[in-house]
């Protein structure tokens, strides 16, 4: 018997019991859906993190007060780090700038402060205002929509110029054309020089309500560069393949500057993209395994339900099997018929699960954060459901195939 005939037969049998088939597939659908949703959430997050890192520049690293991977393990290490580590200063920045041979670009940034922004009657509260050197625009690959980032000269002169996020631009300048206009930040007037392209929201948090002003201006008008305004540096390697050397050199220079002896811990932190992706992979590796348990169990339950229904079906259709055997169906024909039916049933469940997961993914992407439905997830889900169908169909199909034709014909 040809495979096409067997497949047609399977589809007809599934269609003949629509409601039963649908109920049978519930477990399979939920299992596959959960699998695909989890995978697309995690992959979406990974893609997001990768893009962010690419945004910062995959070839950049930061030097800051704390090393989050070393210092934030528990309350003791946090307390120790707080005692040991000191804020970075602009003098540190100058020191590195003068002595480094391997760093390509070295930028300095201050963490931000929420501030009120005004223009005429338009007021925007809690705009995240931070300071940066001019070269950070290059290092961070800023996507400039209008105008320009401020210049080195403007930073050196502590000019009151501002580079604003898309959201700020839209709300303060509803009529558009913000470049060259004046806005008031914390009561002081600034001239807008550039607007960044909109980035949307991530995890429900808008990414476009920010203002960057020159670091010197920030230090003058927002208070000393300590605590929440603490300074950190971002750097790129002069030559791509000497990235690790550039990191090592920075660490060495900082240790010399901080007069640390051999065996003393760093009292500053250096964060590389590798460390971030490494941490992400560690966290999501364990989340992935735990999260796979739910779809895994649902898939097993789904497979058992299919096996159960196939056993019922074989019993119900004993007469049919007898008729087919009397007309010349061989064991293999009957085995194939029921096996293909189970696999087809399971794969239909898998396909429905994938479609539902895709819809959920679209909703999540629209409301919360990006998801990514990969070919790997689709093929994995189809393979898993098909495999589950094969396993669950094998025993019932074998039972059907070895029925004695005389006994089977006698069944009602």
């Amino acid at each position, binding site marked *: 018997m040809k495979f096409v005939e067997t497949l047609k037969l399977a589809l007809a049998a599934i269609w003949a019991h629509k409601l039963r088939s649908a109920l049978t597939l519930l477990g399979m659908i939920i299992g596959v859906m959960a699998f695909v949703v989890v995978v697309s959430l995690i992959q979406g997050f990974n893609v997001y993190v990768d893009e962010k890192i690419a945004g910062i520049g995959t070839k950049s690293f930061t030097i800051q007060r704390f090393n989050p991977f070393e210092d934030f393990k528990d309350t003791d290490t946090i307390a120790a780090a707080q005692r040991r580590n000191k804020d970075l200063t602009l003098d540190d920045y100058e020191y590195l700038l003068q002595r480094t041979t391997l760093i390509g670009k070295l930028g300095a940034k201050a963490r931000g402060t929420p501030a009120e922004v005004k223009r005429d009657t338009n007021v925007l509260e809690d705009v995240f205002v931070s300071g940066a050197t001019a070269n950070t625009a290059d290092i961070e690959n800023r996507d400039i929509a209008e105008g320009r980032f401020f210049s080195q000269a403007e930073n050196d002169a502590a000019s009151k110029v501002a580079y604003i996020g898309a959201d700020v631009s839209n709300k303060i300048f509803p009529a558009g054309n913000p470049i060259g206009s004046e806005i008031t930040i914390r009561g002081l007037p600034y001239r807008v020089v550039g607007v960044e392209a909109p980035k949307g929201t991530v995890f429900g948090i808008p990414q476009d309500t920010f203002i960057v002003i020159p670091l010197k201006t920030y230090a003058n008008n927002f208070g000393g560069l300590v605590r929440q305004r603490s300074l950190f540096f971002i750097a790129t390697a002069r030559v791509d393949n000497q990235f690790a050397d550039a990191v090592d050199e920075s660490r060495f220079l900082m240790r010399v500057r901080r007069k640390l002896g051999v065996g003393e811990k760093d009292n500053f932190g250096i964060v590389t993209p590798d460390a971030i992706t490494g941490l992400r992979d560690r966290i999501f590796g364990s989340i992935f395994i735990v999260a796979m348990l739910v779809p895994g169990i649902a898939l097993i339950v789904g497979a058992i339900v299919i096996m159960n229904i196939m056993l019922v079906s074989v019993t119900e259709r004993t007469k049919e099997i007898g008729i087919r055997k009397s007309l010349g169906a*061989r064991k293999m024909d009957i085995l194939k018929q029921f096996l293909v039916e189970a696999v087809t049933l399971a794969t239909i469940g898998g396909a429905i699960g994938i479609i539902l997961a895709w819809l959920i993914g679209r909703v999540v992407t629209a409301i919360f954060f990006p998801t990514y439905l990969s070919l790997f997830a689709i093929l994995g889900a189809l393979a898993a459901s098909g495999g589950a169908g094969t396993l669950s169909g094998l025993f019932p199909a074998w039972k059907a195939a070895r029925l004695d034709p005389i006994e089977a014909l006698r069944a009602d």
Partner: protein
Amino acid sequence: MSDVTLATLPTEERTSANGNGRPEVVSLIAMRDIWKTYEMGSEKVHALHGVSFEVRKGEYIAITGPSGSGKSTLMNLIGCLDTPSQGEYWLNGKNVSEMDDDELARIRNQEVGFVFQTFNLLARATALHNVELPLIYGGIGSAKRHEMAKQALAAVDLADRVTHRPNELSGGQRQRVAIARALVNHPSILLADEPTGALDTHTSQEIMDLFERLHEEGNTVVLVTHEPDIAARAHRIISIRDGQIEKDQVVR
């Protein structure tokens, strides 16, 4: 390879160069000393003991006997649904008694056309699909299959009922679909088990007329029945009692 050449010869012309166990006159059905024994717990029940007979091509025979006589067992053996515990069964020149399950399935598909008391049609399938079933297992492509099945339905005067399902047909029509299904593969025997058992007298006559016509057209018909007036329409009657042939007589 002598099997092949013999099988292709007309039955009447076949004679064997004895010594290889083949019956001297090669008949369509040759049963030699057939025993069928069932083990019921520790007891052995002989459903058939020592049954021998031959059927030539084109014969119309009835196998009769009271219930429990062993005629159902004999029918299952003739139809290759079962194999004998002892003895030889040659069907159309092939030794069926030594075949395995898959070979038997092939023989059922090619050599035997079953007609059952309760029709045994697939309820969800159309008349056409029911008739196509043996062709599907015979590996015949769909276009040729449709053609053959339509011809078989036309042969039993059901050309206008091709797309009907069994529940849309009368008892007589259902049995005619079953007969079309039995004939579609051009089997060497048409094996009917109480074919009128579920039909009223008038319809029974119609079905028996159909069997007679099929016989006249050259088919070999083996009818299993316990009804004397049905058996009387055959040309030869084999009576079974207690697992043995009681009488084997040519009646016309």
